[in-house]
């Protein structure tokens, strides 16, 4: 067959070239994700491999002994539990009410935009700055001294943006028809919000609460000066006592201890427990979100 268009052959090679470029480019992009995956795996593998051997019933239930070179991390686990609990008690009501205001009550005006900008900006405030804020406000001005309460409230404010964002997402997922139906039947705004919008949004909000929890549990910088203690042989007995916390304990064992290489296994064990704790929280949030999304789709 006679080729009518002499350019046709050229176009074909160009086509091949273009396809080849695309394949190579996509490969590079995929490679970048593989790199990130490998980074993650190396971190998890290293900490798990060297940390899991340290874990025993005693490690989880005993206090540190003989200058923190032996014993376990029980007070740190308890301290992290308490401080996270206080943070949640602060962040959850404030976060949910803020979300309800932004999504149900606020007019799309200047104030609304200002609040949103502040929230996004708050999420970007360095955690150490929150620590200083906590020192100035809770420890000194309010007179809490370094304590569970001061540290918990600092962490609560730090996690507020996470909670608001998640709670708002949950409210947005509730269909508009719910609200219109309620109002059409003569319900007031608050009646409508309380009995029609909030109930289906609860699981979604719970996701946000758990995400906030996991963020608070892992933070170190904000509690450095607001209540975390180097070493305490006893458990905190009131909101005004100081406490040990897992992330701070890891920091101490890794950098501040007099026998750093000697306590390295303990540091790995602590890191492992902290990772497991945070991942369990994140995983439950993901599972909850997954189930909840399925449910919402059925509406």
């Amino acid at each position, binding site marked *: 067959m006679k080729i009518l268009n002499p350019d046709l052959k050229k176009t074909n090679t160009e086509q091949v070239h273009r396809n080849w470029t695309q394949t190579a480019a996509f490969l590079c992009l995929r490679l970048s994700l593989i790199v990130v995956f490998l980074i993650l795996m190396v971190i998890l593998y290293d900490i798990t491999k060297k940390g899991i051997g340290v874990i025993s019933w005693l490690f989880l239930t005993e206090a540190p002994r003989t200058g923190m070179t032996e014993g376990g991390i029980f007070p740190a686990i308890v301290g992290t539990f308490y401080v996270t609990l206080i943070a949640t008690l602060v962040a959850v009501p404030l976060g949910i009410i803020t979300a309800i205001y932004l999504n149900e009550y606020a007019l799309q005006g200047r104030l609304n935009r200002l609040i949103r900008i502040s929230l996004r900006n708050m999420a970007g405030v360095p955690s150490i700055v929150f620590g*200083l804020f906590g020192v100035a406000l809770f420890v000194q001005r309010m007179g809490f001294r370094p304590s569970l309460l001061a540290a918990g409230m600092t962490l609560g404010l730090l996690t507020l943006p996470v909670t608001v964002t998640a709670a708002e997402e949950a409210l947005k997922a509730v269909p508009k028809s719910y609200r219109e139906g309620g109002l059409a039947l003569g319900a007031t705004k608050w009646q409508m919000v309380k009995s029609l919008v909030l109930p289906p949004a609860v699981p979604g909000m719970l996701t946000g609460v758990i995400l906030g929890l996991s963020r608070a549990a892992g933070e170190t910088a904000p509690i450095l000066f607001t209540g975390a203690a180097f070493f305490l042989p006893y458990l905190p007995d009131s909101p005004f006592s100081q406490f040990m916390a897992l992330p701070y304990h890891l920091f101490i064992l890794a950098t501040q201890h007099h026998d750093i290489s000697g306590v390295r296994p303990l540091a790995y064990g602590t890191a492992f427990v902290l990772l497991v704790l945070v991942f369990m929280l994140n995983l439950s949030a993901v599972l909850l979100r997954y189930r909840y999304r399925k449910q919402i789709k059925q509406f």
Partner: protein
Amino acid sequence: MHNFKENAIKYFFMANGMLSIIILLGIFYLLLSRSLPALQNVGLTNFFAPGYWNPTAYTTPQYSILNLIKGTFMVGAGSLIFAVPLGVACATYLAEVAGAREREVLKPIIEILAGIPSVVLGFFGLVVVAPVIAELFGLNSGINALNGSILVGIMALPTIVSLAEDAISAVPQSYRHASLALGATKWQTILRITLPAALSGIIAASMLGMGRAVGETMTVLMATGNALAKPSSFFDSVRTLSANIAIEMGEVPVGSVHYHSLFFVGFVLFMITFIINLLADVIFQRYREEI
């Protein structure tokens, strides 16, 4: 009566909604008022004069934060050098190439990475990455700005990926369709149409990553060595603004000039991140509106 209750609830919610504004203003006010005694004693210019940070010197204490600022930006910039290309590549793949099912498997990787506490990453840098760096470059210690940059980069990566992915996904389908209809390949469309259209969003994402990197505390505290000398290369140990506060705040006598100057360091750090974040936010929102 009913009306009164409704209004009370409304205003209660509104007051609560303004909490974030109050907290931001409160941080600004408290940090500034706590640093005023230091500003009066040391003088604003001395904080930015050439010299060192050495408030506990026996004869003449020095309060220059220039080296701290330099250290902060070295680690911040160093982390972005690899976190931005890597993050944008990941975001492009997730938004444009990966199928729905593939994305559902890949996205948790980024989320898990975001969930790792910074103190754990710092620990990892200290015990695993630093020795590798020392060996690779023949150094005595790998605890330096490079180590900090790598770890802070990992820390900032999830922020960059998820925001850049948002920005890329926000580019209207019609752009892509038009390009494909003209005979461009998928890759040509991504490279010449989608990515340029999303550019300002990607820049905003990178800036927010920078904001995170500059404010990061525990990772740099554990991974960079915290030396006060003037850093000249990435193999030097550096101290950042955030690490400086973390190291000294616990031991300083309350009410001393040193104590108040640490609040000033915090104030400077707050202002730097605030400006970066605000700029990024403005760019991002404008991009969203345009698209």
